[in-house]
């Protein structure tokens, strides 16, 4: 019972993260700021939702597979985000007009 409530809270938080990211993608108006918002889904959103699912399932093969998916997501999606921003910076000479870039 407690586990299920905890899992529900985690999945709910994950969904809130996804909603925030989605709002961010629509609200921001430039690539670099947009991918910054969208990356929330791939990292925090998936982490919270998968943690909730693992709590619901208990330890076992299913949760091991979920962990594998999480590892794959965490390896790949930051890299793709990084590549998109790199391409934008390489191809757009006045990228720093739209937002501050350090």
């Amino acid at each position, binding site marked *: 019972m407690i586990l299920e409530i905890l899992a529900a809270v985690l999945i709910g938080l994950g969904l809130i993260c996804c909603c925030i990211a989605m*709002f961010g993608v*629509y*609200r*921001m*108006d430039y690539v670099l700021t947009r991918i910054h918002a969208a990356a929330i889904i791939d990292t925090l959103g998936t982490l919270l939702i998968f943690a909730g699912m693992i709590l619901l399932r208990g330890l076992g093969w299913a949760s091991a597979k979920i962990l594998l998916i999480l590892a*794959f997501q965490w*390896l*790949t999606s930051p*890299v793709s985000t*990084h*590549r998109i921003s*790199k391409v934008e910076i*390489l191809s757009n000479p006045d990228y720093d007009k739209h937002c501050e870039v350090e």
Partner: protein
Amino acid sequence: MKKPLWYEKLERWVEGDSPALPEPLAHVENPEPVKEEEAPVQHGPSLLRSAGGTAMNRLTTAFGILCCAIFALLMLTTVAYLPRFGDADNAPENETSRRYIEQGLEEVGATNLVTNIILVYRGFDTYGESCVLFLGATAVIMLLEADRKNTSQKDRLALRRSDALDEEERNQILGHITTVLMPVIFLYGLYILCNGHLSPGGGFAGGSILGGALILCENAFGARRVQSFFNHKVYHIIKVGALILYAVLICYTIYVGANGLPNLIPLGTPGSILSAGIILPINVAVGLEVACTMYAFYTYFGRGDL
């Protein structure tokens, strides 16, 4: 009906913080008229120009239009012969589907009934699909291959410069991650390829994963590294070999089945990986075909070469 204040605020926040609301509207309005003005100016004359020109050009255009019309007519007549909707002897009710479900396992031997249908019962169909892939890749190569006639010295220099820039910018992060992930992705693609007769998957799905892995490899390590193991020779051997293997297997099966001869390819025990007769080699052949086609499309559209 007035919107509540919080809703307006939220709306403004979603659309960006700019207090002046008409700005996004003007931004949306602008492209429309431009598109309307540009479209006829761009498309009309260019079509006419290709239709005009020499008599040979006009003949080619007329022939193309004739071919299209004939094919459209054929398709429409076929539609007229389709069974009526909801008829009692339509496909879902007739004996073919029942036979697929009841005897597919013992006749063909794959536990995945969908694979039974698409690769053996309807194998000729799927062979046509593989031929379409083959012809598509061939057409892309014919059109986009960069040779002496369609590339100038300038194009080649530009390509070399961009390659050099890529080499300079060769990304450490992507390279490391790809080194870690590449074996896993290849393994997963092979797993799907070789388990097509046991679980969902098969040649098309596994082949596209393999093709995606090759594209990732090209992005991370550069085209030269991929060329070292996947050059023109390997590409042609795999592509033609896979298609010929498929053709031979499907011809053999059709010949044996049509003449009631005993099938010499053992079916094996259903559920083990070496079972289901011709399905496993066909899946591998289709997968290699799909992987080659995907990678060839990617590189020919990008560089005009493998």
